[in-house]
């Protein structure tokens, strides 16, 4: 039984989102034919709420909710799955200058997995950092499909996968309710917990999936200086 998860989303717990978790889950329920998700992973910016309990909402909407975090490093933003007390004791997630290599190695040693997100994005993505610094070691996967990507960003991310042999995941990076699930990851295995997710991310038996609507091309306006 396969599992499709949006691995990257922000609820109103993140300072730049106004999306309640309940509204996300209701939207997924309403749009299941377009975005067939089994669950979402909340990846709040620079924080991890170990006490959050979404079981009642999971039961109400039939959508799984897992928790992770998006942190900031000297190689750009990184999603951390399998956050536990050891990881929280070792790293201050509010620190925006975490060392990426240390994070990857230590998170792995402590039972989690670190996945750089939107690597093709200027300034906060891995691609630009690789132009000036050595590639990271022990990296398993990167986010190749991001629902907020601009033109060319996902393509640059795919270049990294081709060049370094990383596995590829997808996530919406949604900060708005209606954008949840635009990109996701389909796992071959059944996933029912964050431990399952960490285990499967390490296997590499998954693929990014793109649920973004295919729009007909909009003609570019002809720029005309009228001053």
């Amino acid at each position, binding site marked *: 039984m396969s599992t499709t998860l949006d691995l990257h989303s922000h609820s109103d717990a993140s300072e*730049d989102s*106004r*999306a*309640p978790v*309940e*509204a996300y889950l*209701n*939207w997924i329920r*309403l*749009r299941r034919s377009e975005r067939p998700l089994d669950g979402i992973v909340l990846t709040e910016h620079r924080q991890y709420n170990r006490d959050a309990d979404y079981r009642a909402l999971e039961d109400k909407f039939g959508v799984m909710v897992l928790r992770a975090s998006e942190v900031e490093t000297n190689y750009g933003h990184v999603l951390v799955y399998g956050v536990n007390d050891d990881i929280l004791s070792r790293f201050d997630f509010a620190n925006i200058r975490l060392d990426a290599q240390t994070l990857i190695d230590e998170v792995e040693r402590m039972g989690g997995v670190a996945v750089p997100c939107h690597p093709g994005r200027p300034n906060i993505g891995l691609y630009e950092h690789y132009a000036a610094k050595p590639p990271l070691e022990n990296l398993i996967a990167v986010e190749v499909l991001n629902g*907020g990507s*601009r*033109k060319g960003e996902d393509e640059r991310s795919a270049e990294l996968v081709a060049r370094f042999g990383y596995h590829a995941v997808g996530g919406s990076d949604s*900060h*708005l*309710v*209606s*954008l949840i699930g635009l990109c996701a990851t389909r796992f071959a295995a059944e996933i029912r917990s964050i431990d399952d997710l960490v285990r499967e991310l390490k296997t590499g038996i998954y693929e990014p999936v793109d649920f973004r609507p295919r*729009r007909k091309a*909009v*003609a*570019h*306006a*002809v*720029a*005309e*200086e*009228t*001053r």
Partner: protein
Amino acid sequence: MKRFADINIGDTLGPSEQFVSKDNCRAFARAGGIEAPRFTDDEGARKEGLPGMILPGNMSLGLLSKLVTDWIGAEGGARLIRMSTTYRVPVQPDHKLTLHGFVTHSTPAERTAEIDVWIENEDAERLVTGTATVQFDS
């Protein structure tokens, strides 16, 4: 007249195609007393590291607000009580812009609806995103 009971989660606003010319952009900047070069002059904008003239943030906010107030309609029955926006990418004039909105959730006790809104360019890139709250009289 818009009534709270008539709205549904998933209702759409727009999409509304807009074309904002450089003259529109300059007129807005002058009217608002914000005649910084980036809003009035391509060359001045490039000197600030921008690709060319850009719309003032308040102009984008105005376009998105109008998307919501047009949806409410002239007959009223509801009002826009809050709007927040995130400016992800500078909005350039002389491009086709498409404005989108979706009703995403509601609060019956307050008779309010929350709406996602955003501005896209021709490449379907979301330049400005936001949320709006509309409150209904009945």
